């Protein structure tokens, strides 16, 4: 499993890509993707195009990101979910916390 990220030219948006299974084994990489930036971005995108499965620890990591990004004020899009991944996110009512596409 691999985590990669890109930052927009103006530094305002960071996109995090997750390949394979999304679980606790990548929590440090996942945090590094948004904590170690020189400028704090205002918008976040989590691209799950390459994500095959996720478990509840991944949900915890998404919540960590949300709190880091300002909690209720956080602007986070979760994009390119497969049907399986989306199902888990919806079961957990994450559509109330994130914009899920």
């Amino acid at each position, binding site marked *: 499993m691999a985590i990669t990220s890109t930052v927009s030219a103006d530094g305002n948006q960071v996109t995090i890509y997750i390949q394979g299974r999304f679980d606790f084994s990548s929590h*440090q990489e996942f945090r590094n993707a948004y904590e170690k930036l020189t400028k704090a971005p205002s918008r976040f995108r989590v691209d799950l195009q390459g994500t095959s*499965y996720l*478990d*509840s*620890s991944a949900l915890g*990591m998404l919540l*960590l990101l949300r709190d880091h990004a300002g909690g209720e004020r956080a602007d986070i899009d979760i994009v390119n979910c497969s049907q*399986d991944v989306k199902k888990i996110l919806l*079961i*957990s009512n994450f559509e109330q916390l994130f914009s899920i596409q």
Partner: protein
Amino acid sequence: MNDLRSLKILVADDTDTDRLILETIVRKEGHQVFSAKNGLEAVAIFQQEHPDIVLLDALMPEMDGFDAARQIKNLAGDELVPIIFLTSLQDTDSLVHCLDAGGDDFLSKPYNRVILKAKIKSFNRMRGLHNTMITQRDQLAQHHQRLLQEQAVAKQVFDNVAHSGCLNASNVRYFLSSLAVFNGDVVVAGIRPNGNMMVLLGDFTGHGLPAAIGAMPLASTFYGMVNKGFSMSDVLCEINKKLKTILPIGLFCCATMIDFNFRRKRIKVWNGGLPAGMIYRHLDRSVIPLRSTHLPLGVLPEKSFKDDVQLYDLDEGDRIFMWSDGIHEARNPAGDMYGEERLLEVLAQANEPAIIFDEILTSVKNFIGSGEQDDDLSMIEIRMDAPEHLQHPNHYFVHQQQQLPVEWELRFEVKPTSFKSFDPLSFLLNILTEEPDLRSFSGSLYTILAELYSNALEHGVLGLSGDIKKSPEGFAEYYAQREKLLNEIATGFVHIYFAYSSNIDGGSLTLRVEDSGAGFDYSALQGKPLSTIGYSGRGIGIVEKLCKTVRYYGSGNKVEVVFAWVNDD
């Protein structure tokens, strides 16, 4: 062929002096001369010596030059044997007579050595061009012949692959012209182990070999999966994935796939890019179009592929028609296309459902008339029938067997030496998804397995408390402790047990996970709503939503969940 080559030249003239002069001139130019005193001799020598060029006097005894020319041209066949008439005839009629007889040129008397030399050279060059042309024509004919043979062989191979299914079942009629195969049309039909029939009609973009070649992986994937009982959406996803991988950009496959459940008299339809198929309901003679609602196969990447289907409940005797655009685009001599309206008209006028298939073909062929015979037609008809009426020569429908259940159990234990290094999740998921019925639930099954296993390992075997995860630092701390404990662990176990049971209507998977830990007070959990706050404690809630039942046993170190599904195929 170069100018220096010695040619064989036939000289035919009844006047001794004229012939003598010509023989000498021709010989001096380095050619081999054959002489004849009249037309009969000329023809005889021609047959024997096959000269390259013939110099022929027009007026000769026995047989004149005109008849001799005709016979020589006839004998020469495809080969160009230039005939130069030796004549001082002046009148137009005589000259035309020479040309009609097959003469290519004239040489008038008195003979001029320079002119004769130039004419021989020029005709020799023409012979060279002609021979090249004949050779190329023959090569072309050979290539064409080979192409036809290859197409016949390819069609045979293709038929063997395509017809390994049930296209000759009693409720199926189809028409697939050989040209249609090489325009990329493909029809496959197979029976699933549950007795359902799956049919796919595809039309690859493009023409010729590039279009036809995609049909092979499509057919082999189709039959491989249908025979094993994979669902329609699995088959479609897999074909789409395969075609997306192997086909170049711009080459894809418009297709309609239908899954026929004869027991429930229901069909599932997926149409990506093909002209609308039609359901003909024989009770009220109504027609329901099966329009395309998806992109063709091989266009979208796996993740974006849409496999949602339309369901239709039918009556016995209803018929489904599918066709590629060859019928819609068939043109009459005026250049008009047949189009969907004419198809609907044939269906509207139909009195006898059994012959609609023939009526459509006849209508299209009559429409084309003397127009361009593309012969690029593909059509298939499937009749909804009672399972016990269906017959197929080398494949019997399994309606008698379809109640047979599948049941198995699996016990699995992870030993303490392997907690750190071994990840049982992928391993077990691979086993589970070998069951076609479970394949489409792989996402849910992964999550259930992952939650139960990590609970058993982390809270049970390692004794970690989820409470640590309350802050971002705690989250990291939790996994640091987990890592540390895994390095130290020397005892303990996680037992995993599966019981699988399925039949025609659906099935269940029971999963029991037991660990060597102390357990927990599960009575407090019951009825507690799924938390949306906090970084942990969400897992078991997800499992409860995904499973029919979740029960704890013993001291709380044993959990049993039942995952169930209903087969709506």
